[in-house]
């Protein structure tokens, strides 16, 4: 593992009940870079994030974060590592019984002994960074989808993590929120000097902001490269995915038996 690599996946295999989800994944996430993992829903993208966060253990291979093999850490070591990470969940996962302020302050109160005045200043700075200063007294139920995602982003960066993971940050957002969140991901990565991993199937928005892309299909990497490499790729799957084409290796129909036969039609 080079000193320039923060996260390294080597030959990571994972299966649920003998059903393989990840098949020999090798990935590198260099420090300070914004890397996307793209692929269809259910291809194993989120499972990769969960391995990096140490929630799941690989059946074979390993995930190293900052030089530490995640599945070899005990609970204390794992928690110490997770304090250096932040994860933005698909729908924010804000604590619905707490105000915006308390959500952003949550980790500061849990993991530090900072006085409340300092916490207050930090919360306001984080909310200002995501453009939501003034919403601190609102409850999550009073926020729009895009705002909730930005509050969750403020909570994710509360303790200035070295690694930020985004699980489908663009899902269900309107075009303006989409651009806002996309730009925020890029600018926060650069401002904090963090490393970011974005799991997404929103090709156009992510190609605008990322440094490198891994394409995953059926639990294996089928293509990788910079945004320009991906746009210029001749790989049939990548072309179909990037340009949203109907025809290609990804079939429209679910694999099943002969439809004609099920209708008792003669061939």
């Amino acid at each position, binding site marked *: 593992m080079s000193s320039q690599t923060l996260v390294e996946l080597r030959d990571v295999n994972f299966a649920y009940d003998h059903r393989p989800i990840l098949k020999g994944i090798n990935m590198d996430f260099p420090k300070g870079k914004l890397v996307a993992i793209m692929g269809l829903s259910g291809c194993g993208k989120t499972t990769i994030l969960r391995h990096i*966060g140490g*929630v799941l253990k690989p059946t074979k291979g390993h995930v190293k974060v900052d030089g530490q093999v995640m599945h070899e850490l005990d609970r204390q070591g*794992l*928690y*110490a590592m*997770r*304090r250096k*990470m932040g*994860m933005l*969940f*698909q*729908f924010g*996962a*804000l*604590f*619905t019984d707490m105000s915006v302020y308390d959500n952003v302050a*949550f*980790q500061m109160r*849990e*993991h530090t002994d900072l006085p409340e005045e300092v916490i207050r200043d930090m919360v306001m700075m984080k909310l200002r960074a995501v453009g939501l200063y003034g919403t601190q007294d609102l409850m999550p139920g009073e926020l729009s989808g895009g705002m909730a995602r930005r509050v969750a982003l403020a909570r994710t960066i509360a303790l200035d993590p070295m690694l930020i993971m985004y699980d489908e940050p663009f899902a269900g957002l309107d075009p303006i929120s989409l651009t806002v969140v996309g730009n925020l991901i890029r600018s926060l990565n650069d401002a904090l000097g963090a490393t970011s991993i974005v799991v997404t199937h929103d090709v156009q928005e992510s190609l605008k902001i990322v440094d490198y892309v891994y394409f995953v299909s059926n639990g294996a990497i089928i293509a990788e490269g910079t945004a320009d490499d991906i746009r210029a790729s001749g790989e049939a799957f990548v072309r179909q995915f990037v340009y949203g084409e109907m025809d290609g290796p990804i079939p429209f129909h679910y694999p099943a038996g002969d439809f004609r036969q099920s209708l008792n039609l003669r061939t």
Partner: protein
Amino acid sequence: MPIKKGISGLGRRTINAVWRLGVAARFFALTLLYSATAFRRFRLTSREMFYTGVMSLIIILVAGMFVGMVLGFQGYETLKRYGSESALGSLVALSLVRELGPVLAALLFASRAGSAMTAEIGLMRATEQIDALELMAVNPIARVVGPRFWAGVISMPLLACIFSAMGVFGGYVVGVVAIGVDEGSFWSQMQSAVDFRQDVMNGLIKSLVFGVVVTVIALYEGFDAPPTAEGVSGATTRTVVESSLAVLMLDFVLTAFMFRGD
């Protein structure tokens, strides 16, 4: 063939039930192990006591009052046949303190607070709030489950006491105020019949056990609920059914141990 299918289905269900029981026992052990947070940051526990205990007060007060009033009527009717109307106070108090207080308060607690706990934690799981806690290096059992568990365990005996006290008052209203049983004998018979260790303490122990059981079932079902609308609704139903049955069965077992030979 159907017999074979039936037997294998029965076996599968039994294995599943035993497996769930094991997981629930492990969950309970972890809850106890990570209870330090609930006491170190008692504010978290007292907040949950408000939601589970204080918010259950109305239903407990009203139900206790009516149960006591019904006991007043029914007890008077029966005692009158033997010319022992003056023993109404002891009948009402003993029924409530020994049985009805702990059991009915626990059943009401399961339906009101237990179901709410399951739904809340189930929805936290479904909206990834539990996963978010894990990834923020915050142990969800210590932060979410522990305070709720201890809030339930502390609230339950208090609610049972309030239920019994309200029931005694209800019995007094019907027996003394409405029917006209002698007030002096109502209270003095009660005072002499109710033994602190035998009756009050045993009633308290019962409600404490019910508090542990109902709260653990509610929390486990919520924590284990599949992250779907159907999963959470099923878990909520299971909480009420399982904890009600557990309370009634445990009541029999505890009564058999406590009051044998009385």
